[in-house]
């Protein structure tokens, strides 16, 4: 299956092109917030411009008052992706797949009334998004913590292969709230400075807001003259701890093995890691890549540009991976200078160029879950 439309809506812009250009020119969307509302310490985060969001949402024909900010971001992202795809989202053969870690969780703060607010349910949010586009199919909603964006693409791939649907709108979104920020602070997982993925001096992650969408269409590769297709996806568990990453990179290693089972690592142009910039995550991924024999492949991480965008991350980072693979470039890892010396990894910190045809996207999350996606560039002589 190939993407026929996509969109990234983030602090770095409201289109894939804007975001891609920003990343290529080395800009970051991370900002320092001395006093984020309701949060006791200063934080570094990447936030969507809410005024621009509402203006664009209104311009696209939506009524901001009818939707929560999270819903507006998701709806706008799908609207932009659909314009590019040029398909009728209301068609019965189109399926919506929704990815979010906490959805409209900020509503809990709005008092007792919100205790029974149906907008707190992820199926409700997904349903509103599908209905906005007059799509009558029950959306698929995945909820696997930080790997949800990869799981949503895997679910889409399976649904398209099963035959009932021909297109899948995969949309991921998360916005920041006191709930999420205080939680990550309580886990001592946040860095007070811009994050430094894979750097030996990394000391935590930053959170970010984003909505991102990929619209996939089922095609036979030989029928598609160009593009990048999602060819494999796997989810594996560490079976080790509910929040700490495995010291052996167990689930991550097994996910990598699963997606490469029928593919040669020689074709890998680069690997886009989860790379949250916490000490443990990046170490875990390094161990998994080393065990899989992939430690000499170029590796990048994109959280230095966007922060960790939670349920949107797997989709946002896949879009940039697809774009880069298509253009034969390897995007730099913002925030990385020098890696751990005991486990050397070929982390990129400047633009690279490649002729190779495949790229891997890795994700890991709470609950010991890990996902890997394999993308392949469709070459002209494919048959």
């Amino acid at each position, binding site marked *: 299956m190939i993407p026929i439309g996509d969109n990234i809506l983030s602090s770095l812009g409201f289109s894939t092109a804007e975001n891609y250009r920003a990343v290529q020119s080395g800009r970051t969307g991370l900002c320092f917030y001395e006093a984020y509302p309701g949060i006791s310490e200063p934080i570094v985060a990447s936030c969507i411009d809410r005024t621009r969001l509402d203006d664009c949402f209104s311009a696209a024909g939506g009524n901001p008052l009818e939707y929560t900010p999270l819903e507006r971001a998701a709806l706008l992202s799908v609207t932009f992706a659909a314009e590019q795809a040029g398909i009728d989202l209301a068609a019965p053969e189109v399926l919506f797949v929704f990815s979010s870690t906490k959805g409209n969780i900020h509503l*809990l703060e709005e008092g007792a009334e919100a205790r029974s607010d149906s907008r707190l349910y992820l199926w409700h949010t997904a349903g509103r998004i599908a209905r906005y586009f007059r799509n009558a199919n029950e959306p698929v*909603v*995945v909820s696997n913590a930080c790997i949800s964006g990869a799981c949503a693409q895997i679910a889409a791939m*399976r649904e398209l292969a099963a035959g009932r649907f021909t297109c899948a709108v995969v949309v991921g979104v998360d916005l920041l709230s006191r709930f999420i920020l205080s939680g990550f602070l309580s*886990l001592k997982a946040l860095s007070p400075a811009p994050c430094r993925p894979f750097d030996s001096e990394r000391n935590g992650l930053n959170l970010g807001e984003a909505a991102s969408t990929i619209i996939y269409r089922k095609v036979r590769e030989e029928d598609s003259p160009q593009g990048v297709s999602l060819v494999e996806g*796997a989810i594996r568990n*560490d079976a080790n701890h509910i929040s700490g990453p495995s010291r052996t990179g167990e689930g991550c290693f*097994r996910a990598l093995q699963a997606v490469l089972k029928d593919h040669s690592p020689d074709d890998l142009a680069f690997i886009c890691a989860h790379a949250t910039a916490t000490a443990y995550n990046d170490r875990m991924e390094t161990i998994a890549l080393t065990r899989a024999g992939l430690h000499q492949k170029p590796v990048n991480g994109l959280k230095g540009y966007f922060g960790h965008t939670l349920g949107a991350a797997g989709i946002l980072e896949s879009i940039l991976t697809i774009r880069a693979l298509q253009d034969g470039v390897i995007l730099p890892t913002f925030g990385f200078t020098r890696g751990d010396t005991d486990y050397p990894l070929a982390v990129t910190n400047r633009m690279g160029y490649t002729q190779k045809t495949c790229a891997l996207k890795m994700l890991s999350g709470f*609950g010991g*879950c890990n996902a890997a996606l394999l993308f392949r560039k469709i070459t002209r002589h494919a048959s």
Partner: protein
Amino acid sequence: MRPLYVRRTACVTTRAARVNGEEIPVVATSDPFLTALYRRLGIDYPRFFKMDGLSKLGFLASELLFWGDASRFLPREDCAVICFSRTSSLDTDRRYQASMRDYPSPSLFVYTLPNIVTAEIAIRNKLYGETSVYICETYNPHQIFRTIRNTFAHQPLRSALAGWTEYDGDTGEAFLMQIETQAASASEPLLSAGFLTTAKHNL
């Protein structure tokens, strides 16, 4: 598509527990029912007491499914854990939200992710396979059946624990099935969504 079979079903609510429709007798004590069931089953796994309601339900249902299985703790990658839920982690979300007024609790925050129940089952049984949670408005047999089949279609799985895990603070239910690609003596074929309708109805 390989045929699938259901070897066993287990249902744990906040008041009763059943395996293949038969109730497990649990003598009422001053403990909450789930704790009484844990003790009745003679489980020695102190992590249980750290779990939230959703995880306790799912964990106990999985214990009932693996009951008496000598090979249950052998590490394996060919068994998936797939849960479906309406309310997700909302009960724990509310409890975490309450803790925020004072000191946000890191252990509550971790359980504000609904996939932790799948992790608890995977950790206990050393299951390295796929763990997935899907959120749906209702127990929708068609969507659940389709998702289970899709999961088996794309990887060399031999078995899965799959079903409905729901907890809203007062009531809760984990209805899990042990699904296999090989027929066993008492297993029933999982041919259509109809099986899922009947199986849950019969509980």
